[in-house]
């Protein structure tokens, strides 16, 4: 689905990514793990074509990735944000149309999603009147509305209460089962352990550990992912 081949990126003298290669298989949930500042967000921005790499290439469905492919991505950034003054429905339609959906489709799908997540009554309210959790729900819906083939969730559970986090988890699995591929970046090891099929651990701009979760766990018998994370990160200092 997505192949990241030997990506390197500098910001001035600082090397943000150093020869990073990752292969995300179709229909999997891929955990992108690593401490703060390791380069996860930079990698995600490169995948989204927000910034370009210095070296390396991206393959999408086996061919070099183009700008048009970016419309096939749904990205929920760690830094969430919506226009505060804009009405919920109007805003969701606008963001969906920017991803290439037509207005009518966007509207009908939105009502479906909003119904399911019980936020449809908020359609005509400005975003600033919504609680943080509500805003997160709206943003989640906006991320998946155009039925992207590849979903990128950066710390999706931050800001959600346990009940809503659970709903989100369910929706993620549901989307995966419908055929979407998911890249899931988190610091929350238990949820990574619960959801991911494969993981890559990035530390100091390099991939220091990657593979199927089951393989990694069998290589570290008796350790949970938390332990593996800490050991690997301290080891690769």
């Amino acid at each position, binding site marked *: 689905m997505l192949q990241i081949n030997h990506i390197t990126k500098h910001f001035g003298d600082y090397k943000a990514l150093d020869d990073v290669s990752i292969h995300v298989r179709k229909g999997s949930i891929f955990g992108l793990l690593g401490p703060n500042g390791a380069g996860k967000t930079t990698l995600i921005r490169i995948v989204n074509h927000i910034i370009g790499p210095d070296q390396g290439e991206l393959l999408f469905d086996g061919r070099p990735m183009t700008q048009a492919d970016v419309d096939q991505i749904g990205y929920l950034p760690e830094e969430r944000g919506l*226009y505060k003054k804009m009405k919920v429905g109007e805003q969701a339609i606008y*963001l969906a149309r*920017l991803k290439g959906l037509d207005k009518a489709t966007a509207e009908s799908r939105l009502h479906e999603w909003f119904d399911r997540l019980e936020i449809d009554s908020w359609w005509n309210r400005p975003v600033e009147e919504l609680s943080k959790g509500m805003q997160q729900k709206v943003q989640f819906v906006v991320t998946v509305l155009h039925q992207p083939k590849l979903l990128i969730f950066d710390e999706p559970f931050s800001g959600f209460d346990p009940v809503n986090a659970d709903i989100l988890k369910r929706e993620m699995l549901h989307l995966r089962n419908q055929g979407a591929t998911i890249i899931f970046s988190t610091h929350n090891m238990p949820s990574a352990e619960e959801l991911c099929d494969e993981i890559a651990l990035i530390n100091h701009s390099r991939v220091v550990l990657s593979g199927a979760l089951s393989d990694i766990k069998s290589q570290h018998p008796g350790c949970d992912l938390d332990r593996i994370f800490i050991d690997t990160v301290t080891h690769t200092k």
Partner: protein
Amino acid sequence: MNKILLVIQREYLTRVKKPSFWILTLVVPILLAAVYAIPIILASRPLEHAHVLVVDDSGLFQGQFRSGRNITYHEAGSLDYAKRQLSAHDSLDAIVFIPARETSIPQDAFLYYQSDAPSVTVQSDVNSQLQEILRNCILLDVHGITPDDYALLTGARIHLRTQDIETGRDGFLQIKLVVGGLLAFLVFMAVFMFGSQVMRGVMEEKTSRVVEVIVCSIKPFQLMMGKVVGIGLVGLTQFALWTLLSGVAMGGLRIANADMFQQAQSRNVTQIATKGSEATAQYQNARDQAARYESGEGVDHAVQDMLEGVSSINFGLLICLFVFYFVFGYMLYASLFAAAGSLVDNETDSQQFTLPLTVPLLLTILLLPAMINEPSGSLAQWFSIIPFTSPVAMLFRIPFGVPIWQIALSMGLLVVTFPLCILMAAKIYRTAILRYGQKLMWKDVFNFLRMKH
């Protein structure tokens, strides 16, 4: 639908839908109409009629006070009698008392009132009549000049016309000054008003982090240009509505108040007519003439001058150039304002980046008085050609007539400069917009400009 069009549409609609847009759109024509209507309404409003007693112990003012539409003067023999009358009758407002003379020219006169001070109209009418009567006395007694002659003298006017020697057309420099100054100021205000809206819009997207999602769908350049163009269209809409509504308001006023307008104008005539009394018929005649000179024909001249002056300006060209300089001047500054907005997380930090942006136009406005002296001087010429100051300076000069090559050069330079500014702004914007939570400085700006994507 093209994505940049979507951005333009959002930027435009969210602003046009705001009540503040419509308030501003309505307030300007209403203010204009008020400036136009209030003097007319005030002038045609009936005033309360005042009665004033005159006690003249000097002997100079006897029977000279002329009653008018709003004030009637009554002669009273003695101050004591007048005082008794004033306290006995509510309808009496004041006493004018001129004491016996100690010198040939009386020094003081008094306006007595009881409890309620007389209105400003009464005070000024009494005052002006006192001065006029005294003046006429002196003119006649000392110099032998009749009021008639005096009216002729003061009514005589020679009209200086500044003309182009080739076309023989009037210069109307003052009117051009007003029109040019107005245009320059308008474009200055508009560039800053809408430019800072762009900046705040960019800051809103950056601080709310919504930009992170949007730049996955469109290029930062598209987002920036969409915003600049959308808000620019809001500006053009506002101007169009102002022009339209002001036109409608003025036209409406003129029709609705046609009689009121006429009434106000004919007031002068009636006033003069009622002032006539047999004793002063001849004198009145002269006054009449003077009044015609002073107010009537004088005003007519001024109005005619103004109309001719206004019509001597090529408004078609002026409007075209205004739109051109607004559009390009705005695009140039708005893109730089967008870059400034992308560099900061809150408005207080924006100063260091916006200040250099405001300097060129502000300087032009501050130098307008110097340019007024010489609308075609070298200062005005340079400022109207340099792209960062030309929108204001050139619009100021246009009514005075500017050589075609200068207009062409100024427009050409602006057209060439604005894409350069946009490219530079876009370079800063696309990097800075994603740098949250850090205070960016000028050295970062230079880094962003060098950075390759």
